[in-house]
């Protein structure tokens, strides 16, 4: 059963179609990858799904509900949460409060402070940041700042998590740890839709991969199908 569906999702910036008539769906419990060359429209698609932009035309449904035109905070409270390509944390606030904000404001019904704090502490532990809960988030390494974002997104009781280049800028060890984190998030029953450039990572953790090129979807299939697809290879390597 699809948790997320998009129909003919389109977004123009001036005369340029950043995303053009993309149909997509993500099933409950799946890990779906989104790849494509730079400027293919991957992050724009995430911005459309999370409500930062509104598709025109196009329809996006989450858990069967039409969320086209909903505000980011409303979409978040429905259980669809995201991280950012360029980390967007609250740099001067302690790590704990970064995560707490998600559990206080992002959950469907809202949470009492005590429960929210407990939830946030649990998630800090989950992403392995318990030791630095009181440190201002801006003082962490990039890999750990990305973990703060993941914890904050999960704190909103996300059912679908959009991960925008979780592994970009990480060293090989950190990349491996991030892959392991993705697997553990999936283990919590959270559906994942992720943009990634690190091929080894995306081939390893995804059930299915979608490929965008110049704003259009050019392929959709299992990692094996994608790796051997002629069109995909042409896009990445040239003819």
């Amino acid at each position, binding site marked *: 059963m699809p948790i997320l569906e998009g129909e003919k999702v389109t977004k123009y910036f001036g005369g340029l179609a950043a995303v053009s008539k993309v149909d997509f769906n993500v099933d409950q419990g799946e890990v779906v990858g989104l790849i494509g060359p730079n400027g293919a429209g991957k992050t724009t698609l995430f911005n459309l799904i999370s409500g930062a932009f509104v598709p025109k035309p196009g329809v996006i449904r989450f858990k069967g509900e039409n969320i086209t035109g909903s505000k*980011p905070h409303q979409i978040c409270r429905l259980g669809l949460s995201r991280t*950012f390509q360029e980390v967007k*944390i609250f740099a001067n606030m302690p790590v704990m409060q970064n995560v707490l904000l998600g559990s206080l404001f992002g959950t469907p019904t809202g949470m009492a402070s005590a429960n929210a*704090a407990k939830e946030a502490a649990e998630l800090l532990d989950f992403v392995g940041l318990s030791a630095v809960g009181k440190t201002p988030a801006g003082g962490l390494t990039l890999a750990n700042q990305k973990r703060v974002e993941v914890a904050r997104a999960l704190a909103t009781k996300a059912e679908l998590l959009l991960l925008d280049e979780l592994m970009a800028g990480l060293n090989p060890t950190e990349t491996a740890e991030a892959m392991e984190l993705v697997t553990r998030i999936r283990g919590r029953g959270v559906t994942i839709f992720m943009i990634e450039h690190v091929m080894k990572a995306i081939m390893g953790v995804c059930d299915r991969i979608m490929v965008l090129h110049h704003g259009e979807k050019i392929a959709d299939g299992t990692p094996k199908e994608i790796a051997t697809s002629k069109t995909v290879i042409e896009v990445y390597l040239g003819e």
Partner: protein
Amino acid sequence: MDITRFKSKGFFIPGLISLVLLILLATLPLSLGGYTVVLVTTILMYAILTVSWVLFSGPSGYMSLASAAFFGVGIYIGALLLPNTGQVLPLLVVVVLGGLASSIVALGVGALTLRLRGIYFAIFTFGLVVLILEVLNWWEHTVSHIRGRFVMVVDNETIFYVMLAIFVATMLTFFFLRRSKFGLALQSIGQNEEAAAHSGVNVTMVKVLTFALSAFFVGAAGVVWATRLTYIDPYIAFNFFLSFLPVLMAIFGGIGQIYGPVVGAAIFAYLQETLQTEFPEVYMLTFGIVLVVVILYLPNGIVGLIPKLWRRISGGQHANT
């Protein structure tokens, strides 16, 4: 751990000090009277404006220059409802009405303009002051043909106590807002608005409501100030300086601590009053130099000095960075 960052330690002592200070202030007219009461009233007025400014602009990072507009709206409400020809409503009721009127203006303006970022927001809010001033000017010239209004005379002690009450209300609001869930949301907006929105914070609502809340106290203070001025016209009510002074006072005092804006406003207002009377020729010059020195050498304001001095006294063991 809790969101209430300032909880547990350091709650009792500052509370006690505040209470003692409050009692001292409240008994001031009995002990000193006369000019001191007038001076302290002025200081309280500036403190209200400054704390209200910090309430919204401090955590959110949106620099508002609308203080003079909210203050002026309060002054006009005061002049209209407390004319010298005879009081329409009790003073305290008018104070609340003045606050509400300013809040309503802030709600409208905020809903329209809080999507503007950075300097654009600052300029627009300043434009609001000019806009209201010019509209009033036009109205008084061509429609009402009333130029200038006399306001009911209220004795200095009453003015002082009402101002003190508004000040206490402002401080309590500031204090509890900072510690609340709402305050956390406002702070997150200042740090990264987009991330706040995507974490479930209704950023527009939080911004507009806080903006309106901060305008309330400024408007209320304006009503009381009208009775002190006793005569007003649009240029007196909408004084551009009052848009910039709260910003300067906040920077002067330091906005990192809750008492920073109060200390800043107190010293600033006192300096202004004394310099203006003692050295009228060089008053602005001295004032400017003091400000430049503070901004250059005390980036955390006057109150930023306290931890520095404390470290020096205690030999650095308690260095708290």
